[in-house]
């Protein structure tokens, strides 16, 4: 599951997915801004067929946090 998540992040932020880990801080990904964050949420939701609550969306700090809400 983490692997699929890494790939999604790699595509959205144009980074090598191998460099993304559970500890990666989302805001520190290259080119992060609020629109990129939104794009990441939409991509994650589509990939994992999940719908995150607004509270969850706001609380996501690391890639591990995303993994935790989609399991």
């Amino acid at each position, binding site marked *: 599951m983490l692997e699929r998540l890494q*790939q*999604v992040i790699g*595509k*959205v932020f*144009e980074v090598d997915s191998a460099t993304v880990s559970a500890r990666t801080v989302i805001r520190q990904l290259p080119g992060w801004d609020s*629109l990129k964050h*939104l*794009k990441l949420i*939409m*991509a994650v*939701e*589509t*990939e994992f067929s999940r*719908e995150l*609550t*607004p509270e969850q*969306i706001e609380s996501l700090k690391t890639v591990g946090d995303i993994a935790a809400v989609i399991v």
Partner: protein
Amino acid sequence: MADLTAMFRSLREVPSSPADAARIARDILTDKNTLKPVKAHVLRTSTLEPLADFLVVEAAMQSLRAELSFGGYEPLAMQARNAAGEWAKADVVILAPELSDLDSAAAADPLCDAAWPKRASDALVALAQSVRKAAKGRLIVLLPAMLESARDGYGDLAQDGRTGERFAELRTTAWNQLTENVADCLVFDSEQLVREEGLRALLDHRMWQGFRVPYSTTGMRALGMHLGRLIGVATLPRRKCLVLDCDNTLWGGVIGEVGKEHIELAPEGKGAGYYALQRDALALARRGVLLALLSKNQEAVVLDALAGHPHVLLRPELIAAHSISFDVTKAQGMRAIAKQLNIGLDSLVFVDDSATECELIRQLVPEVCVYQTPAAPHHLPGFLLTLREFDVARTLKEDHARAAEYQRRKERQRAAPVSGENLDDYLRSLEIKVKIVTARDATLERVVQMEGKTNQFNTTTRRLSRADLDRIIQSGGEVFAVNVADRFGDYGVTVACAVEMDKRDRRASVTSFLMSCRIIGLGAELALLSHVGAWAKQRGATTLSGYVKPSDKNQPARDLYQRAGFAESKAQDGSLGSRWDYDLERSVPETPKWIHA
């Protein structure tokens, strides 16, 4: 890099995953060589950025590299007034209002009063007009959809109630007003998204409340795809002719073997897929696409089926050209069809069920755009309507009658003299009549359409927009259009030109001259130059100038001014090409004696 273009073109569908769309969009935007760049700017008050990647992929499927920019979130009227903004220079400007931008009372309560649709429509048209004034490129205007269930009851689910009526009124009123009063304007009715995706899939209140994104991911993808497709309509020349294979494309089975009685073709049951394909081809013909048949078959057998099979929809009079023979390859037949219709190979789209034939055409006639039909007949309905090459904004009177005109052209060619006979007598026998008018309203729309589509008889290939032509007329120039008819029928508006006046130089310059290839050889173009000469002389011009800028395809137009008695000058204009002059103080160009003006 060429492979990259092929890859984008061969993408059958825009990916539904935002991550995949983002990755492909990035590849597209970094490819600076093969795709044609087009700048598009979105004037909005909601967060529409999530549609960008989908739009970019869709545009690339039409060989476009769409560079998108978005306006701020301030009121649209304020954004529109900022004419000094970079946005005004974009090739396409997209005006995407929410209902609340047009009428806040209606957004709060769609049953507030009966007059809001008119108010909202007026507000939208006023916005579009002020954007039009500032923008250089074409305009795409979005009509708001009804994004909720009817508010006035639940008992009658077949109706959207008065809520639905109000929204329908808004859309109809706005559509009519926009297409009539705003030049170079394409309209997208967002209600289309509701029809295609369904309200439940389209809405995501989380996204609206949290980020002001108006639709779900599904909805943003659908909107992005439609806008990408419309950008193609706004900026690309269209192809003109659909060339169809017969066996297993127009009907199921091999007609030469099973006979016309046993081919699969019926509104229901086994032949329904093929029937649906014919139905879609008919719709394309109605919007002005020419239909041609290319088949390895016995000509008589196929023509007999077209005329006599009870469920054939593509009757012989709808077929503008055909090559049906066992003796020629499809590549040869394709060239013969282009020749019969007097259009370029790059105006053709070929549809065949056979992968081998498709590949043959791709290799031997690479100018032709090729599609293989889906293998399963139940995938045939709607297939032809997905071909972007035939997307058009609006269909004009001329489009509806096009196939019939080509039929008449065939008759005219049969009446043409064999070598040695007197050409003048032949032309006189055609009883050619021209009616020259100054182009306004619908006629001006037709000239805009010709500007976009005419490749061969086009002296300068400037692709003038409605806004460009309006500017020429407003600054003292004129746009002329010619309706041509002969004894075989009426060809509609098929010759046009734009004339710009330079009072100080006392010079009238024909900066664009267009003629439909259907009527090349009749001399109507000379009649128009004669008319323009007299018009310019009356307004004090002493010289009538014409420009010729060679393109890959405009060979037929290059000797126009020479034939009309103009003298080549040494003058060159970067964008208009070489100049030809006619001394109006001496005379005006002549109308051929076989033409009745």
